[in-house]
């Protein structure tokens, strides 16, 4: 079925793909392409790349960070548009966030229920990103999400950050350099970034209303005003995503290219097939990992984590790379991933010496054996981007169904 909206935007989507061609970097080193994902032919496929990032320097470059390119337009406009590369692809969050530094468009700002501007303090484990909620039309591949609430991070018009926000993280991630990307495309199993908690509780920690002179208070944000996972807003191909990446052989690769495919069982290129389907809990998105005799109930798949993070007291930790593992020899391990539906599958992974791997290979953006501790939670297992290498991982969104199941679930 042809979606008229996609046809309408066809020219602009093509522009986006041409830009992608120049940043994609050619064939994936260290692996072969998986599946028949022809980026140029399908309207629901956008190229993704693992590279050193938008502000790579000799001493500070991205590792195991997946990027794509999107086009934003002023709502309703076909001319006031901007294509932005190095948008991180993150299955661990929901919503599109763009650094003000990378944005040239002037987008309409969202108002809170009290008439002031709606702002968000986006929390990450290592820092916070502050900025207004704005509205844009998003185009990615041939898909369009119109009137999408997004966050603009680091907008100088809202420089005063509430103390509750600055206190929530170690550093402000409000520039392209500190954020490590021009933006982030959150395509988790959740439809909104916060959900009903933020719609009913003014002290939710995320949403604030701010006056023009910088006085901010916590406020409820209706779920429709929250920064939204854009995929459910697509006219079709809106039930989830597939990240398809080639295998990366040890010790790594300078760049890796793959595909982000929209929709599951909606086109010829996104059929479910016989993949293992692991449902996750609807509150946190967790499934269970059985590792080293322990059943870890806080387990998740997260393309936004740059390693495999779990606890194993028998593996030597690094001295300078705090929080990462540094065994003398690379260890080959395996664990069993089990969904809430009881379905399970075994996955192998490698734990290498994080210091040696990165120091000996300073140009590598993809290092599959990068792993570290998850020391704040003894029930956690974080399957980060290395898990996605050599796989085709489907993320199905809550309240959406495919031919084989209803989200939230992962399949691979």
């Amino acid at each position, binding site marked *: 079925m042809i979606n008229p909206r996609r046809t309408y935007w066809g020219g602009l989507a093509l522009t986006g793909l041409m830009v992608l061609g120049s940043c994609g970097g050619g064939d994936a080193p260290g692996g072969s392409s998986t599946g028949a994902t022809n980026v140029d032919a399908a309207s629901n496929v956008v190229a993704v790349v693992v590279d050193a990032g938008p502000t790579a320097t000799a001493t*500070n470059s991205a*590792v195991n*960070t997946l990027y794509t390119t999107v086009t934003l337009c002023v709502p309703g406009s076909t001319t006031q548009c901007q294509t932005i590369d190095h948008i991180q692809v993150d299955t*661990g*969050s*929901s919503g599109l966030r763009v650094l003000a530094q990378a944005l040239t468009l002037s987008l309409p700002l969202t108002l809170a229920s009290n008439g002031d501007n709606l702002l968000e303090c*986006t*929390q*990450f*484990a*290592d*820092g916070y990103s502050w900025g207004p909620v704005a509205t844009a039309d998003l185009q990615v591949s041939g898909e369009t999400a119109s009137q999408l609430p997004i966050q603009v991070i680091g907008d100088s018009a809202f420089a005063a950050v509430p*103390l509750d926000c*600055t*206190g*929530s*993280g*170690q*550093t402000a*991630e409000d520039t392209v350099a500190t954020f490590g990307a021009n933006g982030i495309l*959150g395509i*988790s199993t*959740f439809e909104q*970034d*916060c*959900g009903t*908690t933020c719609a009913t*509780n003014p*002290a*939710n*920690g*995320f949403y604030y209303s701010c006056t023009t002179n910088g006085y901010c208070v916590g406020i409820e944000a209706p779920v429709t005003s929250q920064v939204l996972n854009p995929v459910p807003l697509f006219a079709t191909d809106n039930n989830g995503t597939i990240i398809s990446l080639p295998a990366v052989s040890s010790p790594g690769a300078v760049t890796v290219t793959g595909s982000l495919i929209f929709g599951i069982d909606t086109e010829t290129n996104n059929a479910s097939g016989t993949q293992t389907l692991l449902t996750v809990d609807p*509150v*946190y*998105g*967790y499934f269970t990992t059985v590792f080293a005799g322990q059943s870890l109930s*806080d387990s*998740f798949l*997260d393309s*936004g*984590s*740059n*390693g495999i*993070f779990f606890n194993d007291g028998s593996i030597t930790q690094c001295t*300078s*790379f*705090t*929080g*990462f593992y540094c065994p003398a020899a690379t260890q080959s391990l395996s664990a069993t991933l089990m969904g809430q539906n009881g379905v399970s599958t075994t996955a192998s992974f490698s734990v290498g010496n*994080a210091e040696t791997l*990165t120091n000996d290979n300073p140009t590598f953006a993809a290092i599959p054996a*990068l792993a*570290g501790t*998850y*020391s*704040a*939670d003894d029930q*956690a297992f*974080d399957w*980060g981007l290395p898990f996605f290498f050599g796989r085709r991982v489907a993320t199905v969104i809550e309240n959406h169904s495919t031919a084989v199941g209803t989200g939230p679930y992962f399949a691979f």
Partner: protein
Amino acid sequence: MAALGGSAAAIAGEAGQLKASVKTTAHTNYRVHEMQLPSGTVLREFADAQGTVFAVAWSGPAIPNLRQALGQYFDVYANATRTKHSGRSHLEIRQDALVVQSSGHMRAFRGRAYLPRALPPETSLDELR
């Protein structure tokens, strides 16, 4: 204000300010004061026999205000050097006098901070959650 390195006697006042309810449980060598914050996040403060907070731990949909929870140690945390390639989902600060560990993603954060030199005897790190 009860915070890391501070006195647990201030916890009642803090809970009032945060509109949080406090639940206290006694362990062999320390007490745990557990607060449900308005954001839905649970904050636990671990106080030794003298009432000094030697660890805080949190779990929930939002990271608590660590300027309050870490108190005098917040600046140490905020100015600490980060591990290269530490990424967005994990942070670990490990110094002789302070350890801070923060992990997770939207809707599901966990973390803790503790003073390694101030742990009561026979206290396992596994208990500080």
